[in-house]
């Protein structure tokens, strides 16, 4: 009896040693997005550290996380928002990230950027982008759904369960940051917003080349239906937007499909590429973009947030929460960090500009 117990203890201790060793190895080998970049890979995990009582949740790719400033939504309208964004986020990933978010909170409005429906994007899906949207998710049926819907032909489910299987080759690139940030997450976003400064005016933006087929895929429609259904079930208003990114080209044929879908499902759809809306937002593509019209710089993102905040207040029943002392105190800290980040980024930008001009 005593011998059997001893054997069991040895077995359990050995198993614990194996698991702990592998977990440590995995923690060392995983990319440290928040330190080494790409910073976008850090966004998904960052959300879990937040107090979750947001009024608005955005889901989507760089067209949301670089184009709308949640700080302005709070500062000017008292709207508590968060962007659950990730690089090249595909519609099915947007759905599962939303489903994951709704495990923690029920916002009043969900904003979804329809660029994620672009069939070209789905056809060009890459594992590196899948990883940035999925690896940071906490384990739940939503993460499993995200993996199953995203996996490319040569990807394995097990690689997502044990990322060490895919990242072991990083051993030769390890540095001191991999040890320092094994368990620590450095914050890189402002409620999911990635701040960019600088100006590179939009010019020579190519028109879309003719396509043989403009229809969204069945998979895209299915996940949009699922998103609509999920929001209905939770009593959330779903707002469809097309962010004002000039490239990749947003075809009129794409837009028609979204307009028709929105009408059929009684959803609001705002196309920020529309000239009237563009004029209302005040976005100027010679000043408000840092990369020739693909994304907004911080001035552009603030203009868009300002327009959207007004719209959400006037049309979607959102109320000003700046009177809530605890929430206001949280935002005070966030605003301070935002302004500090802005100052530092501008200083760096101006310095780089001076150096470029000097050379």
């Amino acid at each position, binding site marked *: 009896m005593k011998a059997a117990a001893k054997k069991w203890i*040895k*077995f359990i201790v*050995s*198993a614990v*040693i*194996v698991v702990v060793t*592998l977990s440590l190895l995995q923690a060392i080998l995983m*990319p440290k997005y928040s330190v080494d970049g*790409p*910073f*976008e*890979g850090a966004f998904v995990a960052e959300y879990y550290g937040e107090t979750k009582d947001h009024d608005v949740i955005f889901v989507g*790719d*760089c067209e949301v996380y670089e184009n709308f400033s949640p700080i302005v939504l709070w500062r000017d309208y008292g709207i508590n928002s968060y962007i659950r964004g990730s*690089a*090249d986020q595909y519609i099915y990933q947007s759905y599962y990230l939303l489903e994951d978010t709704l495990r923690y909170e029920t916002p009043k409005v969900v904003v979804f950027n329809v660029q994620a429906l672009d069939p070209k994007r789905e056809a060009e899906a*890459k*594992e*590196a*982008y899948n*990883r*940035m949207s999925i690896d940071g998710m906490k384990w739940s049926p939503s993460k499993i759904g995200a993996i199953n819907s995203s996996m490319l032909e*040569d990807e*394995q489910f*097990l*690689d997502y369960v*044990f990322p*060490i*299987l*895919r*990242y*072991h*080759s*990083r051993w030769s690139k390890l540095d001191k940051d991999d040890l320092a940030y094994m368990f620590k997450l450095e914050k890189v976003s402002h409620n999911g917003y990635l701040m960019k400064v600088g100006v590179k005016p939009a*010019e*020579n*933006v*190519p028109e879309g*080349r*003719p*396509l*043989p*087929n403009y229809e969204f895929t069945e998979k895209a429609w299915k996940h949009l239906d699922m998103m609509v259904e999920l929001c209905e079930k939770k009593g959330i208003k779903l707002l469809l937007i097309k962010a004002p990114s000039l*490239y*990749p080209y947003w075809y009129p044929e794409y837009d028609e499909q979204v307009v028709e879908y929105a009408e059929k499902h009684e959803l609001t759809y705002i196309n920020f590429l529309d000239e009237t809306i563009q004029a209302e937002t005040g976005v100027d593509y010679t000043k408000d973009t840092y*990369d*020739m019209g*693909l994304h907004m710089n911080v001035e552009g993102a603030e203009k868009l947030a300002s327009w959207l905040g007004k719209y959400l207040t006037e049309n979607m029943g959102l109320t000003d929460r700046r009177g809530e002392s605890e929430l206001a105190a949280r935002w005070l800290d966030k605003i301070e960090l935002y302004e500090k980040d802005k100052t530092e980024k501008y200083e760096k930008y101006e310095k780089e500009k001076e150096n470029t001009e000097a050379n």
Partner: protein
Amino acid sequence: MKRFLTVILSAILILSFASCTAPIDDGGENGSPAKDSKYFFVVAGKNNYEVKIDADMADVLEALGEPLKYFEAASCAFDGLDKTYTYAGYVILTRPNGKKDYVNSIQLSDDSVQTPQGAYVGMTAEAVKGIYGKTTEETSTMLAYTDGNATLSFVLKDGKVISIEYLPV
């Protein structure tokens, strides 16, 4: 117990190396390059320079000179730019790989240029088939011919070619 530990660690190591495909670090493509395609674009007036899919864009630029228009788009998150070079009648798109840019597509946008075999924008689908024969893929809005690392694609509207593209496979 030592045996147990050895078995577990060996299994993990085997699994690690069994799934040892290309590392995930740059959002670039994996896989081995296919052979050069028989489909490529020839620029008349530039010593009949051959622009091929996957060609080094630095060489192409040297041969063709500066484009009429240039546009660059950063890829989401990763370094490197997708670049668009617009010349008279055709557009070349590149993709970054390491420090170099490679031709990712060539689009013939009007009838001022044509394929080496004589197909041009405005031609009927039947005429294209007359030149190229049996398609690799065909729909009511597209005819495609694949060989090696490239697909020659004809986008159709009302039975006529509205765009011709050389695309990577």
